[in-house]
């Protein structure tokens, strides 16, 4: 199983803060009107940020499909 990781596309991010609000682990912060993955080690890959981001600007890669 490939390691999971959280990636982002800063060119698409509009800094709306929706992901920050929904993250249950306070992984994300807004800095200079963009989302920043400030504490990646705390991420549990729950997918809330990816599900709710209106701009497809944050996403999880790795792991198997049904996890």
């Amino acid at each position: 199983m490939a390691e999971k990781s959280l990636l982002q596309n800063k060119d698409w991010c509009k800094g709306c803060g929706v992901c920050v609000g929904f993250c249950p682990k306070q992984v994300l912060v807004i800095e200079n009107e963009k989302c920043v993955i400030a504490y990646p080690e705390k991420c549990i890959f729950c997918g809330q940020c990816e599900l709710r981001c209106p701009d497809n600007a944050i996403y999880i890669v790795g792991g198997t499909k049904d996890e």
Partner: protein
Amino acid sequence: MTNTNCNEMTQKYYRVDRMPHIWCPGCGHGTLMNTVVRAIDKVGLNKDDVVVVSGIGCSSRAPGYMDFNTLHTTHGRALAFATGIKMANPKLHVIVIMGDGDSSAIGGNHLIHAARRNIDITTIVFNNNIYGMTGGQFSPTTPYGDFATTAPFGNIDKAFDLCSLAQGAGATYVGRGTAYHAPLMQKLIEKGLENKGFSFIEGLSLCPTYYGRKNKKGNAFKMHSYFKDNCVDIKVVEKNPEKGENKILIGEFYNSPKTEYTEGYQVIIDKFQK
């Protein structure tokens, strides 16, 4: 340059060279558009067999980013164009994306007649309770008493319940989700796509820029949280009616297939081809 810094679904189903999209930060339309794409993927439709049609409005910009056969038409007329497409080639899966103004003000007549005919079109309304694109005028779904640029002292019109309107007019599949209830929204769209007939799915969206600001609803996260706290599924209310008091109903409201319009038309064609 093609931007591939995004998830697989986005690479497969979006015109990534046109992104980021024009919507404001936190606009609910982006989240709802993703529910449409995930539903198409889940149902397993072939991209080339899908046509996405829209009218005019912020919501109607969606097909511009979606990598299917797409048509951006005129304000309120998406269903008229979509009806032509479906009649000309009934094998296509026709999906219409409209705004609340687009679908129920200027396009209200097209909506009720498409529903009455039960033509096989999956109609999805991104309802943000306002005319977003033109600067925040009230729409037929702006709640009574709410503010808009054209209702600076409060709206005195009563709002349409779009789902009741569509069901009353003859839609055979009807449901409501929200941008917050993205998994439910996806499921309703999947079932709408599978229904052979007119399916109407309302997605409550959020416009932080106009509706939100005029009505002091807070930022996009607060507007999502409002849906979380104030919506209740019809299944829950059917068991406990008191749980529905002062709440917004969501879920599957109606699912009752009837003869589909292009099939009815084919019967006539066959009569003359004998």
